[in-house]
């Protein structure tokens, strides 16, 4: 049996100094972006409290910003963006299907149970 980890599949297992410098620049740019997004989230949370009328907008924006952060971490830091399309799809599509279904069922069943508890008591 040939050892799999000695064979190099990925053609970007090695890169030169210049390519390295480019890669590092991208890394720092993404870091700055993630930090900025986190600062915005914390500032929003600190300024607009839960009682206020604009809270639902803030809540939705938290979730959207988190998805953006997650996207950058997966695509850039985990290098999934540089992998083959087939690998990207094999990983992301089943996950997206499962999670979207889970969220749908959470909202549906959660509100149904909530309504039932309101009408019939705990």
């Amino acid at each position, binding site marked *: 049996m040939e050892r*799999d*980890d*000695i*064979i*190099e*599949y*990925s*053609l*970007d*297992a*090695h*890169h*030169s*100094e210049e*390519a390295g410098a480019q*890669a*590092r620049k991208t*890394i*720092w740019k993404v*870091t700055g972006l*993630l*930090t900025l997004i*986190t600062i915005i*989230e*914390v500032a929003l*949370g*600190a300024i607009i*409290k*839960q009682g206020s009328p604009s809270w639902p907008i803030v*809540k939705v924006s*938290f*979730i959207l910003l*988190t998805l953006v952060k*997650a996207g950058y*971490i*997966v695509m850039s*830091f*985990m*290098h999934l963006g*540089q*992998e*083959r*399309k*087939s*690998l990207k799809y*094999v*990983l992301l599509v089943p*996950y997206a299907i*499962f*999670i979207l279904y*889970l969220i749908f*069922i*959470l909202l549906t*069943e*959660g509100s149904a*149970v*909530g309504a039932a*508890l*309101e009408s019939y008591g*705990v």
Partner: protein
Amino acid sequence: MAGQASKQIDTKTLWGGKVSPFSSSYGKLMMWFFLVSDALTFGGLLVSYGFTRFNVQDAWPIGEETFNSLPFLGHGYPLIYVALMTFILIVSSVTMVLAVEAGHRMDRKGVTKWMIATIIGGAFFVGSQAWEWSHFIHGSEFGKVELADGSQAIVKGHFGELESFTVTQAGNHHKVGDEITEDLMHQYQHAIEKGHIENNIIQLHDGSLAKINKAKDEHMELIVKKDGGEFKVGQKIEGKNAEEMYYEAVNSGEANRIVYGANLNQNEYGPQQYGQFFFFITGFHGFHVFSGVIFNFIILLGVLKGTYHKRGHYEMVEKTGLYWHFVDLVWVFVFTFFYLV
């Protein structure tokens, strides 16, 4: 980028055997598959958290009110510590990417440097999470009070300091007239939990009775979090009324009228499920961070030994990096859904 070249292989060669169809080694592919399954586990946990929160009738705690302390600096810093923890974990993810990049250039010193930074960041996160747990379990000075009508309220305000206990009736250890000045808060809270305070007289561990000398509380405000016979969720009680109702519970002689901190059964912040989800989700995540730190350390030893340099590539660092990024990714979601929203 060199990665683009691997996309130009024609499909017949790609799927014809003897090469990986995904241009990825077995180890890396399996790590990705594991991460997808673990992500589904965490996804399931967060969804069940959402479901519970959706159908709990009582008020759910507000993140910035519950988590507002800094180590050594006390309270008044809403969500600052958890934001710092998030920042440190993201930075440790960045140092990990830099370690992988250094590995791509076979720069052993660079890999070592960045991996050490990653380990330190991870260790800081685990330590911080441990502090958060201990602070959560310990609770606040006022605790959560069950009012006479059965409703439950959290308390805001400044707790007047306990000055001393003056023994009025001797017990096994203390004599009449003894002034106790040590460990007051601990004994006070214990006595309240057991219902051992009546008319401002506390029954101490050794059976003696003592008068409580305590400074006045300031700006006391009760916020109802659970419906009772008279008070409903969201109601606020201030001033003299608040003090009267709170101390009615303190002096009632009934056990468990006031809950401090958190344990596996109840917590002072909100419904039972709040504490349970807090411990489970952050604990499960913290366990992943901890194991990640251990893995990083083991791989660091391999880097120092020169194993990967001899092998010709630093893919092991990349695989460990994938796990570490996953841990960071999960935290980003836990932070949003547990602390922010």
